[in-house]
């Protein structure tokens, strides 16, 4: 079997969204996954987005890795959202390029590990375009500049369809990362393209373009821009009657 990226690019809807609340983006992803699974949606979707400040918890939790009180976050209006992706706690904010591939992995020929590595590769190549040499670490997934973390990763797979994805720190304010042990790792320093290059005026639009170009190449996708109205039509309420947010807080942690 040839690597998916070496085959003819597969058509893929592109949702290039400047800024969207995390929970709305999550609902959108879940609706798209459902549509892709049932066949209502006949092709993959890639969402590029930035989020207003938010902390998210992975399936194995991560509240214990929050080092400030939830009241402080509440006062600042920063929500904490538990979700179904792999990984632990992390932060999203404006200036971070977030990519959500809604890809039917088996039909695209992707093995899950290879897919996670491909998402890391997108961030590594995007960083290289700005002169930042980043690498992966097979023990601690994500993308690193020496021992500083530049990009995070965490996906979920529902009926073979991926969602969640990667987050590359471009010009994002790094201070909120100090309020957690990111990804459950103690003493990890986060970094950004702006910090590594010393360019505070780094052009976020250029970062987004670069991320899209590498995503298309590495995932083997042929982007077809879709308008937000189309996406909202896909995001009709699903049959899921339980609260997707709080009901899925995992009670068990890994021993």
């Amino acid at each position, binding site marked *: 079997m040839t690597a998916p990226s070496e085959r003819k690019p597969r058509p893929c809807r592109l949702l290039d969204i400047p800024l969207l609340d995390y929970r709305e983006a999550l609902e959108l992803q879940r609706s798209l996954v459902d549509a892709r699974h049932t066949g209502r949606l006949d092709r993959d979707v890639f969402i590029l987005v930035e989020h207003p400040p938010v902390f998210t918890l992975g399936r*194995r939790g991560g509240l214990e890795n929050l080092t400030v009180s939830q009241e402080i976050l509440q006062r600042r209006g920063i929500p904490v959202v538990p979700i*179904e992706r*792999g990984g632990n706690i992390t932060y999203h904010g404006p200036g971070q390029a977030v990519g959500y591939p809604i890809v039917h992995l088996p*039909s695209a020929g992707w*093995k*899950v*590990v290879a897919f996670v590595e491909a998402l890391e590769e997108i961030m590594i190549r995007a960083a290289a375009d700005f002169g930042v040499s980043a690498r992966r670490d097979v023990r601690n*997934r994500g993308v690193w500049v020496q021992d500083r973390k530049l990009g995070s990763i965490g996906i*979920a797979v529902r009926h073979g369809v991926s969602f969640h994805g990667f987050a590359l720190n471009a010009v994002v304010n790094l201070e909120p990362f100090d309020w957690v042990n990111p990804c459950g790792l103690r003493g990890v320093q986060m970094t950004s393209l702006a910090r590594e290059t010393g360019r505070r005026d780094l052009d976020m639009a250029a970062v987004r373009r670069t991320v899209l170009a590498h995503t298309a190449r590495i995932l083997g996708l042929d982007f077809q821009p879709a308008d937000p109205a189309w996406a909202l039509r896909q995001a009709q309420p699903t049959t899921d009657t339980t609260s997707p947010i709080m009901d899925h807080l995992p009670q068990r942690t890994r021993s």
Partner: protein
Amino acid sequence: MKEIHELNLAEDVRYTQDHEWARLEGDTVVVGISDFAQDQLGEVVYVELPQVGDTFDKGEEFGSVESVKAVSELYMPVSGEVVAVNEELEGAPDLVNKEPYGAGWMIRVKPEDPAQMDSLLDKDAYLEHLKGLES
């Protein structure tokens, strides 16, 4: 990724389109994931299983497997009550990779309607399903 002809597809189980298998043993059904699924996932680092006594409908999510930063959901092949879970997986989740049809089993279910087993795929039908995925 294994080629389809390299896959180990057990004869004594039935399969779902989502790559779980189900084996009728007496009046209970044992559930795990197929060789295709474990190969697709890569090294399994964590398996989240339900509690004994939980009941689920056919197709409902009963747990998840986590490989590298990826959580994949698991679905019930038949409706029923969980009567046992494989506690070995807590300390040795890689059993799912090593022995997907044996020591890597996940849950044992008391089926609500054993006839639901007939709606699952036999080995040949599952093989056809796998071939169809590669289009």
